[in-house]
């Protein structure tokens, strides 16, 4: 009997493997580097051996098995691939802004593997990004965790298939503006946001019960209980209640952060991460106690009313209060130098090297539920690695090579000017001008305008 079970499990495992797109896995030996493991200290003159996409050995004087390429990294630094817990790179759609709850929407449906932002992120050492739904809705769509396998044509190949499900929530000005002010429906205020959440979860409980009743009744003879209406929206909320999905919530103010903690407590939701969290420093102990922490900007604020009360010490305060803290980009530009962003926690808050590096590696991995697979240089983990010239927390750091699953996707030495995967046959080639202004500054004055067109011209991402 036991044997049969094992056989069955093996078959299932096999089936599962086949249902995934087979992603490339590489083997490589990186020699003589300063290895920043994040979890196990720094190793001088150390080697990292990768076989079939997995870190096999970390130590000194390792030899490459036959056929495995050796890279001499003398004088260079090796760190785990950077993980961005908040990104919108490689998505064809960001906001399905038409309803306060759109939990049925899946970002995995709209992944675009050709987007150049992926390559630019690789050039900044980022190997994994959390491609999120936008913040127009109280409960937005389900997000996709992406592995930056540049060159893949099938979206399934850049989706990290073994990452758990996550979903976007949003509090405060964005959902109240889009739905309340823009559309005249709930939520018009922060109180409305809470009401939408509580109503949603209560409906999900009823939905779950209705299906349980039906599923029990349907096998019985003479059953007259008819199937309830199917709703992926409510099913997804029920899955959140069942702990199957990690909530990532766009938030700024301390009151609304604390509100969501209370809602989560009332409904028994344990997997909760706050995003942006500019006033997180005010409720750091509460965040530390009850949630999977906060993913914040290093020093970006004042782009709208609710983001004025901010400090660059936010990350350090959260960290020292015991909250899992990560630094994210939420921007196709910032994603290229998250190591600089992490370094700012040393200038503002004096975090240690390991603490600062964990902000862009292990901690975001924890928040995405993938820290058993990535986020540090440890034997058995997936070989997402970056080789740096200069210490990654130095102002002079320049990423040299970026590996995902042991496959090199970026090499500064073979970096072509035009890295696009897809070029349109009817594209007019026009001169490119670099804008003097930052995108987010542009957005400030046009809030009303894009709101008017219901996001038709612009998508607010932050």
């Amino acid at each position, binding site marked *: 009997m036991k044997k049969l079970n094992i056989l069955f499990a093996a078959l299932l495992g096999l089936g599962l493997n086949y249902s995934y797109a087979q992603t490339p896995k590489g083997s490589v030996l990186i020699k003589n580097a300063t290895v920043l493991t994040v979890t196990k200290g720094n190793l001088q003159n150390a080697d990292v051996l990768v076989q079939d996409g997995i870190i096999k050995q970390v130590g000194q004087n390792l030899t490459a098995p036959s056929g495995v390429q050796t890279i001499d990294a003398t004088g260079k630094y090796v760190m785990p691939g950077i993980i961005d817990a908040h990104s919108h790179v490689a998505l064809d759609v960001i906001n*399905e802004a038409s*309803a306060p709850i*759109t939990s049925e*929407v899946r970002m995995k449906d709209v992944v675009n593997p050709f987007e150049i932002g992926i390559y630019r992120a690789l050039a900044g050492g980022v190997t994994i990004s959390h491609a999120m739904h936008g913040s127009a809705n109280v409960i937005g769509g389900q997000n996709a965790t992406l592995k930056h396998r540049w060159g893949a044509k099938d979206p399934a190949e850049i989706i990290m298939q073994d990452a758990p499900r996550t979903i976007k929530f949003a509090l405060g000005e964005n959902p109240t503006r889009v739905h309340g002010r823009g559309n005249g429906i709930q939520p018009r205020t922060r109180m409305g946001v809470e009401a939408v959440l509580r109503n949603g979860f209560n409906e999900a409980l009823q939905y779950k019960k209705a299906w349980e009743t039906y599923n029990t009744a349907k096998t019985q003879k003479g059953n007259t209980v008819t199937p309830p209406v199917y709703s992926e929206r409510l099913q997804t909320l029920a899955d959140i209640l069942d702990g199957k999905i990690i909530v990532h919530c766009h938030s700024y103010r301390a009151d609304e952060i604390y509100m969501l903690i209370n809602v989560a407590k009332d409904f028994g939701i344990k997997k909760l991460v706050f995003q942006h969290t500019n006033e997180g420093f005010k409720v750091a102990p509460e965040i530390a106690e009850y949630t999977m922490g906060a993913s914040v900007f290093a020093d970006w604020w004042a782009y709208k009313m609710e983001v004025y009360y901010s400090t660059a010490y936010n990350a350090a305060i959260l960290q020292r209060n015991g909250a899992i803290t990560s630094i994210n980009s939420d921007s196709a530009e910032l994603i290229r130098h998250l190591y600089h962003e992490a370094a700012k926690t040393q200038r503002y808050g004096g975090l240690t090297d390991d603490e600062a590096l964990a902000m862009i590696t292990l901690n975001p991995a924890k928040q995405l539920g993938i820290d058993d697979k990535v986020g540090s240089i440890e034997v058995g983990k997936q070989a997402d690695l970056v080789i740096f010239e200069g210490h990654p927390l130095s102002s002079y750091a320049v990423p040299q090579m970026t590996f995902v699953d042991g496959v090199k996707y970026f090499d500064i030495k073979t970096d072509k000017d035009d890295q696009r995967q897809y070029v349109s046959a009817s594209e007019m080639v026009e001169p490119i001008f670099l804008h003097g202004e930052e995108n987010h500054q542009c957005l400030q004055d046009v809030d009303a305008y894009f*709101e008017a067109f219901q996001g038709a011209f612009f998508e607010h991402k932050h």
Partner: protein
Amino acid sequence: MKKQFLKAGMLGLLIAGFLSHTAWAQSDPTGKRRVTSTYAITNATIFAAPGQQGTKGTVLFRDGVILGMGSNLSLPKDAQVIPGDSLFIYPGFIDGAGNMGITKPKDLERPKDLITSNPPDEIAGITPWRSATEQFSITGNQVDDWRKTGFTVTQVLPDGGMLPGKSSIMVLGNSGSVNVLQENAALAANFRGSRGMYPATLAGVMAKFRDVYQNTTLALDHSKMYASTAGVKRPELTPTQMGMASVVQKQIPVIFTASSDLEVRRAIALQKELGFKLILTGLENYESVIDLIKTSGTPVLIKLQVPDDKAIKSQKSEGITEDTKAQYERVKEAYDKALKQASLLEKAGIPFGFSTVDTKPGDAMKAVQTLIKNGLSEKAALAALTTNPASILGINRVAGTIEKGKMANFVISTDSIFKEDAQIKHVVADGYVFNYELKKKAAKEAEKTENGSAAVSVEGIWEYTSETPAGSSGGEISIKKEGTGYSGTISYDDPSGSGKVTAPIKNAVVSGKTLTFEFDVAAGGMNLTVSISGEISGSSMEGTMSVAQFGSFPLTAKLSSPSLTL
């Protein structure tokens, strides 16, 4: 007694009516009734099916059915003889998916209390119960122009939102006949979001598709229960669910418009998840999914066009940087690759057909010739125009080849159909013969220049949609000539809530085929100028809508009414 008398009287009237009707028909005041429905095209070169050699002979058909073909047929007395000496006969072309002769039903007026987060299906573009038959008209230039190109059968898709309705297979025969070969042939679907309401984007559309599909499945389960068990509450199938039922029961396929490789993958992903039958149409950029198309066994209809060469032609050779040169090369490479795609489908052994949606009849055969120059075999090209779409549409028993017993649908040309100089002299559809005047070459040139210089007509009401990163938006543009310039208005989604606002247009200029104009939007205390520029071809316009600092977004418009008197 009285009653009986009355009945007799009625009968008499009926008979009288019937007789007089017959008498009318005999005199045929229209003068259009044909003398015979039996024809013989004699001594022509017949290409009966793709890949077959041409054979000299006669084709005989009556009442729309091929009676026979060969070199020693005895012709019946009533057969009208069409001398086919020096002419080439091919099976009539079949359009796998088209929108010729389709008029979009008027958009329903938005109710004042519309809840945009949960709008009624009909307003949100979910109308699977609609039929293309109701939107189709065989009279009018569109069908004439396509017939003139050689098309004798089309599967017309209804116009509308994400699930606009069901397609119909039409034979392009006589306007007085019922020309429906098959109604409700497939359910049309696309990734188009609904304007200003749920589902507004591709992501919403995919979620809504699943929702509609799953709930139809459940509603049908419920109906089954109701039929077999007492005490079950009454099923309430919505019009949407009734419209979807034949898809869920796998009686008819979904014909999904998917132009890019990513859209192809998305449609196939939905198909794998839900299990419906699938046909893909409107493919433009598909090189990277040829293997997937092959392994999934999905029938495909590619767009009957080649990419616009404007970008290639506008490339300069002097005064450009090395960077620009490199970018030019990549566009050229993409262009060359795009032209080779059809031949790669052939190499992979995928029997594809064509779709005429968004393509111009005048460019159709030129496009086929270009594909042949880029590696597609003539045999595969003819199959894509005839036998392949016949199989994909499930009408290969009656159409696609010239065989005894099949429909009399032919293209009759002066030369091999794929030669540049070939001209179509007759098209036979459903046994009706359409004759076309052959152009002399010189005359053709003259006409060309005339067309080139003629000003396009922009007057009328245009319905436009612009695609933006967050979904589509749109409204109406109405334009009138005034003196030497133009004036008019444009409507757009109200910046301060729902509904539409109208603004006057300014600086409207028509130069060549391009219309440009501007309008002002007041929003949040700011005045923004939006400029629109579009190239007009016939009754459609393609271009961009741009706002200073914000970038530009593609815009398409259709002339919904050429007259302004409403």
